[in-house]
């Protein structure tokens, strides 16, 4: 069963659509800056902030100003989902499901309520499922809908569920995505864990000192051949494999040797019927926390050997939590389409514990047919997706 990607949409700190994101990646321009749209933070933070107010985002999403008070993650998600869905339509002959991913849902509005105790009705927008509900209504998708909420691996797991639904012939087409806006809740949360760097993050650098959060949304369409025969959509890429395994080590930290990460990557390879040598490039989770990059680095080294090509795009966008998995799968597709590896940024010193080093300069005209993308989250959650042409 072929699982084809036929639509892409993305909005992040490095661009409001796919082309802008691609341009920023290939010109190595980071979207990390001082966060200035969120009021009431206890100190300055750097992050991948999209420099548009909610009003401006609503104008992009709806083509006009709307009076409705909507969560920022919903606005980001709607913008990305509209790009991906394009002129596709509901069709009674195409069984279509909708899978979203978020960690915070409408938390920005909940924060406002907790501060002001006004507009209690905005708390209807709190639960994680609200974005999926909104988008399913917007695109008139009336069958299965759900929202994955597995922290930083949420949208990778959403791609996995969608792919398995198509493989098992449960649905013909799935609109899949994830979105998280920057909120005080998550910024304070990661800061309380003492893994928030107040300088631009340095993935896989010996002196890395934590992550910068970011905000983004990404959406894709997956279709089987039966659906493509009707929609006549062009195939952009294929989902070849997926793996999910639990580290079962600690609530928030990864095991020192990345056992769960290795297992997730191994399962994905088996699902794709590929060997480690068949992977041309790895888009790592690479958050720049001391713990993640060591654990993931060791897992990559163990499974793929010392010459493997890998990088992380977190220093471009920030760590976009539930959106990270899907926007990085979209960046991986850009790598395949353009035979290009986007390098890590801010990487100056090799990690002493590892033999492998990430790609530090842009590599063009390298044959990239198959990419593995990692997303790891709290709760020991490890997810890997393999994408092909």
């Amino acid at each position, binding site marked *: 069963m072929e699982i084809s990607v036929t639509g892409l949409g993305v909005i992040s700190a490095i661009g409001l659509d796919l082309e802008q994101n691609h341009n920023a990646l290939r010109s190595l321009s980071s979207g990390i800056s001082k966060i200035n749209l969120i009021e009431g933070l206890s100190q300055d933070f750097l992050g991948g902030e999209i420099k548009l107010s909610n009003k401006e985002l609503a104008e992009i999403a709806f083509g006009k100003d709307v009076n409705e008070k909507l969560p920022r993650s919903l606005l980001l998600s709607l913008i990305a989902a509209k790009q991906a869905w394009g002129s596709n339509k509901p069709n009674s002959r195409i069984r279509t499901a909708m899978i979203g991913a978020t960690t915070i849902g409408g938390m920005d509005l909940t924060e406002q309520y907790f501060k002001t105790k006004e507009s209690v009705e905005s708390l209807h927008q709190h639960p994680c*499922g609200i974005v999926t509900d909104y988008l399913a209504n917007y695109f008139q998708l009336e069958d299965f809908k*759900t929202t994955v*909420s597995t922290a930083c691996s949420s949208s990778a797991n959403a791609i996995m569920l969608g792919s398995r639904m198509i493989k098992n012939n449960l649905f013909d087409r799935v609109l899949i995505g994830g979105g998280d806006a920057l909120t005080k809740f998550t910024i*304070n949360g990661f800061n309380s864990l003492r893994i928030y760097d107040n300088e631009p993050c340095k993935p896989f650098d010996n002196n890395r000192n934590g992550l910068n959060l970011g905000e983004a949304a990404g959406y894709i369409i997956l279709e089987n051949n039966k659906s493509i025969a009707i929609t006549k959509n062009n195939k952009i890429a294929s989902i070849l494999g997926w793996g999910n*395994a639990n580290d079962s*080590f600690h*609530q928030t930290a990864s095991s020192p040797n990345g056992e*769960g990460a290795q297992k997730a990557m191994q399962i994905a390879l088996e699902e794709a019927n590929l060997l480690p040598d068949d992977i041309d490039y790895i888009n790592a989770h690479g958050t720049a926390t001391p713990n993640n990059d060591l654990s993931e680095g060791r897992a990559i080294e163990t499974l793929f050997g010392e010459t493997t090509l890998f990088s992380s795009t977190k220093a471009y966008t920030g760590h976009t939590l539930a959106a990270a998995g899907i926007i990085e799968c979209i960046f991986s597709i850009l790598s395949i389409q353009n035979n290009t590896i986007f390098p890590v940024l801010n990487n100056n010193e090799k990690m002493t514990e590892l033999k492998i080093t990430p790609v530090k300069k842009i590599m063009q005209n390298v044959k990239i047919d198959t990419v593995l993308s990692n997303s790891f989250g709290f709760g020991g959650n490890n997810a890997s997706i393999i994408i092909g042409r």
Partner: protein
Amino acid sequence: MAFIHKYSTISQGNFYNKNILDYYFNNIASIETIHPEYKKVISGINLRRMSAIVKMGLANTLACIPKQKVGAIVVGTGLGSIHHTELFLSSFTDSELSVLSPTPFINSVHNTISGEIALHTKNKGYNSTYSQGGLSFEGALTDAILLTKEGHNVILGGVDESTPILNDIMQKMDSQYKFTTGSTFFNLSSIKKDSLAEIINCIITKKQKLYSFINENFNPDEDFIISGSSFCNNSERAKHLDYSKFSGIYMSNSAFGIQLAVELLNSNITHIENHNLPLNMKRIFIINYATNNDVGITILRK
């Protein structure tokens, strides 16, 4: 297909490791969630650091662990640990503290429940968490059905908690109902032998399509409907046996409805409340009126 081998509930009523129907016939009224003695099932060191919602999920999981290796843990929750969400929100809203405790933040993340279950059962298999308001459990169930097809032995659960702040907010929103706390977990596999029931189907659809679905699929001589909801102002469900009367009101309470259906399929009772069960009952439809527009339909057979 997916076969149910074990179940366990913590909810209104003394249900842990017991049947809901026994409670019904004993007619012990309770509006409070009755928690088991957690220290009898979870070791003390772990218990102290655990949030209430994780305790419920883990205790239910431990009651559902099969002899075979568990390959996957899947949880549906509408709000996750809303208590720890409130705690963390308050910690940076109400105080000027610049050093915040990370514990409520970690516990507020929805997949802390499935992650902690994996951690405390030393399970390194597939792990996922779904949240979709009143359809949160149906998302997890759909994944679990696929996982059994893929050969996994699955722990599947629904869990939600209520808090005074949550119900205060509900009251301010002029809600006619209060949220309660509850959780139901299952062990599912593709093995038919010794199973309690088979899940034939689980779909999510629009309410206006429900009637044609029932017309096409429901056979009154052999089928029985139970229904419920995670919100109260709903007249449709009054036509059928209403599982939410027993479960209380929480977003993942359709898991409770499914346990009730499993028990009915395995019982000899001929009627319950004002409803007669078909003499030759083969299937039970569990209809979850999740919102004013969305329904989840799960079909079980013995």
